[in-house]
C-alpha cells in the first residue's frame, strides 16, 4: 500500500479458493489517495487499485476578490488562500477566469472533488478489500508509458497489406546534433520507440534503412493513442436560441481576435532545447571536422572528398555512388558502404549528396573508424551539415515517413499580461478575450497566500473563477467565485 509517495504497509496475502480479504485499521492510513498493489511471488504486479481516503478535517481553498465588479481594462486582483492545511502542505492549483456560457448545463463539468469521492472509502473503523479472481483480463492495448512517450506503429506492404517483418527501422530528426534510434519490426510489422523530451515538437523521420531503394511501396500506420474508442456514439444536441446566439457571438469575437493577433502568431511549439548543452552525438566526437568555406570553392561532393576530406573516397561504380573510409588509427581500409548522415538523418540517396558543393555544405564531420552502436555497426560515418539544416522534401517523399511529434508544453500565463494589454490599449486595439486568466500550475505552500493579477477585457459579461487542485497530502481542492465586467 502506497500513499503520499511512500510505502505504508506490506501485507502478505494467501489466497483461499482463489480469493482473500484484506482488513486494515483506519488509523494506519492517512487521508488522501491510496494505491493498493497486488504482487505475485515474482514481484510482478498482478492488480492495482486506487482509492481515496476521506479526511476528517477537510482542507479548502478560498478565493478573495477585492471587488465583485470591474470596468473594461481594469486591473483585477484575486487572492487565494488555503484553510485547514498544515504548514508543510503544498497545494498545486489550476486557476481559470473565463466568461460564463449558456452551455454550463450541457457540459458535465464536475470538479476534482467529485471524482475523488467517487472512489472514496467511508468505512467507520476498518477498511476491507476483497481480492477476487478476474476473468476479464486482457492484454494491454499499448505498452505502459511510465518512462516516456512510446511511438508505436506498423509498417505494411502497400500491395497486399502484409506486415514487413524484422526490418531495421531508424528514427531521427534534422539537427546539428545527431540523435539516432533504431529497432527491428516484429512479426506483425510493429515498431516501438521510447521518446524523451528532446524529441518533443520535432518532425521525426522514420526510415526502413535496408528495405529496397525507396519506401513508395510501404504504408506507415502510426498508432493513435489518443482516441482508441470507436464505440462512442454521436448524439444530437438541441440548442436553445440563446445558445445559438452565443455561438455566433463567439465566432465574431474569434474573427476579430484573429485579425488583430495574426501577426507573429505561431501555432507550432518550439522543440525543447533546455538540455541541448548536455546532448551529444550518439557516436561521440568526430575524428575531424571540415568547413568547406575555409577552402577554395568546390562544385560537388566528389571534388570535396578528393580535395579536402583525407581518408574519404566518394566514387561512382556502375551508376551507384558509394563511400569508403580509411581508418588511420588502426590502418585499415574499411569496406565500402560508410553511413552518410545529412543534418543528422541517415541519407540513402548518395545521388543527392553528390550534388552538394561548398556553397551548400556548412560542416562535415568524419568518423574514421568502425562504430558499434547497440547491435549496429557503421563502417565509418560521414555527417554532413548544410547551411539550411533541412532534409530535401523529394528525399523524404521517397525514403521516409514524417511523424510530427507535437507536444503541448506546460503553459505559463504571460507574467507581463498587464503590460501587454496596456500596450494594446495605447494602440487602440480591441481586447475581446473570453478567458481573462488561466494558470494550470499555481503552487501555494502552507499558510502563504497567492496574489493573481490580470486585466479585464472589453467584453461586458459575467466571469467564472474556477480553482481546482490537490494538496501534497493528496486532498482535492476546489473553489468557485464570480466577477463581472461592466
Amino acid at each position, binding site marked *: 500500500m502506497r500513499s503520499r509517495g511512500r510505502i505504508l504497509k506490506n501485507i502478505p496475502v494467501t489466497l483461499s479458493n482463489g480469493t482473500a480479504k484484506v482488513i486494515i485499521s483506519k488509523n494506519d492510513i492517512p487521508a488522501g489517495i491510496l494505491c493498493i498493489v497486488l504482487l505475485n511471488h515474482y514481484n510482478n504486479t498482478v492488480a492495482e487499485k486506487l482509492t481515496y481516503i476521506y479526511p476528517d478535517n477537510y482542507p479548502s481553498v478560498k478565493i478573495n476578490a477585492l471587488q465583485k465588479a470591474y470596468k473594461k481594462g481594469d486591473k483585477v486582483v484575486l487572492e487565494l488562500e488555503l484553510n485547514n492545511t498544515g504548514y508543510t502542505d503544498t497545494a*498545486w492549483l489550476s486557476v481559470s477566469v473565463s466568461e460564463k456560457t449558456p452551455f454550463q448545463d450541457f457540459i458535465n463539468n464536475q470538479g476534482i472533488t467529485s*471524482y475523488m469521492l467517487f472512489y472514496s472509502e467511508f468505512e467507520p473503523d476498518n477498511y476491507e478489500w476483497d481480492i477476487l479472481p478476474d476473468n476479464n483480463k486482457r492484454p494491454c492495448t499499448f*505498452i505502459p508509458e511510465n518512462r516516456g512517450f512510446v511511438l508505436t506503429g506498423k509498417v505494411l506492404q502497400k500491395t497486399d497489406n502484409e506486415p514487413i517483418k524484422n526490418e531495421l527501422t531508424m528514427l531521427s530528426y534534422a539537427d546539428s546534433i545527431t540523435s539516432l534510434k533504431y529497432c527491428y519490426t516484429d512479426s506483425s510489422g510493429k515498431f*516501438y520507440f521510447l521518446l524523451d523530451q528532446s524529441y518533443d515538437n520535432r518532425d521525426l523521420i522514420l526510415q526502413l534503412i535496408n528495405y529496397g531503394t525507396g519506401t513508395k511501396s510501404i504504408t506507415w500506420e502510426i498508432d493513435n493513442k489518443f482516441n482508441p474508442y470507436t464505440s462512442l456514439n454521436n448524439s444530437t444536441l438541441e440548442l436553445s436560441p440563446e445558445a445559438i446566439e452565443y455561438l455566433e457571438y463567439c465566432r465574431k469575437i474569434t474573427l476579430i481576435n484573429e485579425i488583430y493577433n495574426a501577426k507573429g502568431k505561431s501555432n507550432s511549439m518550439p522543440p525543447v532545447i533546455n538540455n541541448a548543452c548536455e546532448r551529444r552525438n550518439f*557516436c*561521440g566526437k568526430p575524428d575531424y571536422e571540415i568547413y568547406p568555406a575555409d577552402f577554395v570553392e568546390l562544385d560537388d561532393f566528389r571534388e570535396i572528398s578528393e580535395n579536402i576530406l583525407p581518408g574519404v573516397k566518394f566514387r561512382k561504380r556502375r551508376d551507384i555512388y558509394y563511400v569508403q573510409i580509411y581508418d588511420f588509427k588502426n590502418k585499415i581500409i574499411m569496406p565500402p558502404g560508410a553511413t552518410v548522415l545529412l543534418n543528422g538523418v541517415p541519407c540513402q540517396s548518395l545521388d543527392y549528396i553528390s550534388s552538394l558543393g561548398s556553397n551548400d555544405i556548412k560542416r562535415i564531420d568524419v568518423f574514421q573508424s568502425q562504430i558499434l*552502436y547497440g547491435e549496429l555497426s557503421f563502417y565509418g560515418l560521414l555527417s554532413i551539415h548544410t547551411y539550411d539544416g533541412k532534409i530535401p522534401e523529394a528525399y523524404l517523399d521517397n525514403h521516409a515517413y514524417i511523424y510530427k511529434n507535437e507536444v503541448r508544453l506546460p503553459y505559463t500565463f504571460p507574467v507581463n499580461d498587464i503590460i501587454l494589454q496596456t500596450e494594446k490599449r495605447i494602440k487602440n486595439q480591441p481586447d475581446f478575450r473570453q478567458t481573462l486568466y488561466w494558470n494550470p500550475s499555481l503552487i501555494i505552500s502552507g499558510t502563504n497566500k497567492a496574489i493573481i493579477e490580470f486585466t479585464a477585457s472589453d467584453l461586458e459579461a459575467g466571469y467564472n473563477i474556477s480553482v481546482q487542485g490537490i494538496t*501534497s497530502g493528496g486532498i482535492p481542492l476546489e473553489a468557485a467565485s464570480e466577477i463581472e465586467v461592466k
Partner: protein
Amino acid sequence: MKNLIISIILVLITNVELISQKYYCNCTEDISITEDFEKKLSGRIYINSNMSYGSPFFYKWANGDVIMSDGQVVKNKYIRYNRYFDDLVWLRKSDYKNATVDKEAVNAFIIYAENNTPYAYFRKTRIKNWYQSDSSDVFLQVLEEGNISLYAFRTVMVNKNEDEIYDKNVYYLQINNDYYKIDANRLSLLRTLPDKKAQLKQILHRNKLKVRFEPQLIEAIELLNKDYEFSN
C-alpha cells in the same frame, strides 16, 4: 511527488471507464519490448595493439552496468577496464566485437564478479595528473566512500625495454571535494590528514594496521569514517 499526484489524477479522471470495468493490465508479453528501450552503448572498434607482456586490463571480461552521463543505466553488458588507455571496453555478445565506449558519455560503471556481486565500482572523476598540463577525466575505482573517500587510479607502466607492462596503482583521498594523491604508507597518510593525525595513529595502533597494503589502507579510512560518524 507532484508527477505522481498528477498521474494519479489523470488515471482517475481520464480512465474512469477503465477503472469501472476492473481492468487489469497483463503486460508480461511487453517486457521484451521495454528491454529494447534501454539506452544503447556506442563506441569505436577496439583493436588491441599492445605487444608487451602482461595484460593492460583490470579484471577479466565480466558482466557490468554502465551509468551514462545523462543518468540512464545500461545493464548487463560484457565490459572490461583498459588501464593502459584509461578506457572502458565493451564486448558485444552477438558478434564478439570490442569497442571503446565514448568516455564523455559514461559517468561510472560497475563490474560484477561471477556470483553477480559487485566486484569494482569505477567513477569518472576530474583530477590533475602530473603528466598533463590541466586536469582531466579519469576512471577511478571507488575503494571507500564517506567523510573521507579513497579512490584508486588503476594504471600500468611499461618497463625500460618496453616489452612488459606492470601494475601501477595511484591512490587519491577526497576530502571536502579536493583530491590528494597519497602513497600507500603511514607517513603519506598522516601528512595528508594532519588534523586527524592523533586519531589516525590511534586507529592504526589499535587495529595493528600497516597501510602498505591496499586492504589495510581501505580499512584505516573506513575506521576513520566510522569514528567521524560516531563523534557526530
